[in-house]
């Protein structure tokens, strides 16, 4: 709110233009430095070999998008349930949620993927590595989501719950009509940030041989021996996903900002 009230629209435009200019300048300087570094390394780019495998990149990139989206939806559900669990009055529920969050956040995703696929999935007879991959990634991200949601729920003033009870809402109605609509606005930027992490973390799915973007680059590299030519498109492909998300996150932050009433 404060942003839209301060200064005229023209002033805001100027602000935005100077910020865009500054961004461009920083990117240009970085690009120049990188170009100098590549030139001094004497690396000779050979794009022909990699170009032949372009379809592999596209398929891998689409797989990454699909796996990330599936994990995102699942992890939001897991995170919400866990966040409510973290705030539960029942000690056992609270303890279960807390142990889950600490175990997941305290161990590497790599280990979780290996144990999830080779031990747990094997034991229950789940063979589809894409399903297992999405599940493990969702459980991993869900622990972080849970902390984001818990923080969002805790940020709603106690008076809101009081008012909800005073007008006779049931606990479930209070959560659905009063608490969640406010909490979701609060956590949306952080959730978008978590999605950025999720997309990058999905690169580890390559260790259980999910043919996603990173594995595609690794394979192309092993076929062509053109390391940088294989991995530079990888960086570009991830940026293509994460930059718009960051922008979305900032936009959400601005548009949902309202003063507590």
């Amino acid at each position, binding site marked *: 709110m404060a942003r839209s009230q301060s200064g005229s629209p023209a002033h805001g435009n100027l602000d935005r233009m100077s910020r865009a200019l500054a961004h461009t300048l920083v990117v240009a300087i970085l690009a120049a430095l990188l170009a100098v570094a590549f030139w001094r390394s004497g690396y000779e780019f050979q794009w022909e070999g990699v170009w032949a495998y372009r379809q592999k990149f596209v398929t891998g990139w689409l797989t990454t998008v699909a796996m990330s989206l599936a994990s995102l939806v699942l992890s939001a559900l897991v995170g919400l349930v866990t966040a409510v669990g973290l705030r539960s009055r029942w000690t056992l529920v609270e303890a279960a949620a807390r142990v889950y969050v600490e175990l997941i956040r305290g161990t590497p995703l790599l280990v979780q993927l290996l144990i999830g696929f080779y031990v747990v999935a094997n034991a229950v007879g789940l063979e589809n590595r894409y399903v297992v991959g999405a599940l493990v990634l969702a459980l991993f991200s869900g622990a972080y989501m849970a902390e984001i949601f818990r923080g969002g729920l805790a940020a709603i003033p106690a008076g809101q719950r009081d008012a909800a009870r005073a007008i*006779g809402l049931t606990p479930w109605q209070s959560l659905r009509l009063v608490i969640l609509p406010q909490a979701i606005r609060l956590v949306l930027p952080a959730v978008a940030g978590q999605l950025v992490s999720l997309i990058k973390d999905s690169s580890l799915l390559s260790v259980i041989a999910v043919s996603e973007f990173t594995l595609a680059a690794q394979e192309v590299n092993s076929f062509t021996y053109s390391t940088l030519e294989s991995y530079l498109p990888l960086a570009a492909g991830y940026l293509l996903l994460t930059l718009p998300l960051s922008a979305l996150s900032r936009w959400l932050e601005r548009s949902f900002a309202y003063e*507590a009433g």
Partner: protein
Amino acid sequence: MELVVKGLTQAYGKTTVLDRLDLVTGDIRALVLVGPSGGGKTTLLRILAGLDLPIEGSVSFAGKTLPRDEPGLLAYRRHVGTVFQAYNLFPHLSALDNLTLPLVHVHGLSPAAALERVAEPLERFKLAEHAHKRPSQLSGGQKQRIAILRALATKPERLFLDEPTSALDPEMTAEVLEMIGELKDLGTRFVLVTHEMGFARRVADEVAFVGGGKVVASGPASTMFEKCPEPRVREFFARILP
């Protein structure tokens, strides 16, 4: 409302806030709770409003005893209204949606019927032009008057108001007190916690002085303000009344 409170005890951790509090009123319309800060007024009001369960003791209005279980209290809260010091409007909803939410989701009115129900009071209290604003776009006085309408829209048996003007400047205080005075004239029954002694004197049928977790004295407003036998009460009024 004939209020009978017996042996009411409430504690948070090791702090006793209400200490076997007793209070009996006649069949009155307006009861005002006064007394020093931290004396237990708000705690008492929250129990009367069915928001908190006391550790011990009982409360009855007109012979009906307040339930001691959460489902019972939920049903009880649906028949009374509560107004808070900090308004506690829902900031993500417009003033109008704040008013209709309990009507639609608790009392089963259709959205159209709910709108119709709140239209007249919005007009009467000159809030209709602000109905579509979010709470953050309203002044403190407007927020509190919307909050009072939200509590009233469900046609409650009585209202509980917890220091409704403590967060407001004098002008807005006057605007909210005027509304409460008008509601009393319209027949609304209420229990009010306030530090506005002039208003308390004007509006109260009975006054209870709450201090140290007990009712130190209670009775008709005129007796309480002018010739209360309790020295503590006389000293309190002497200090704050002009």
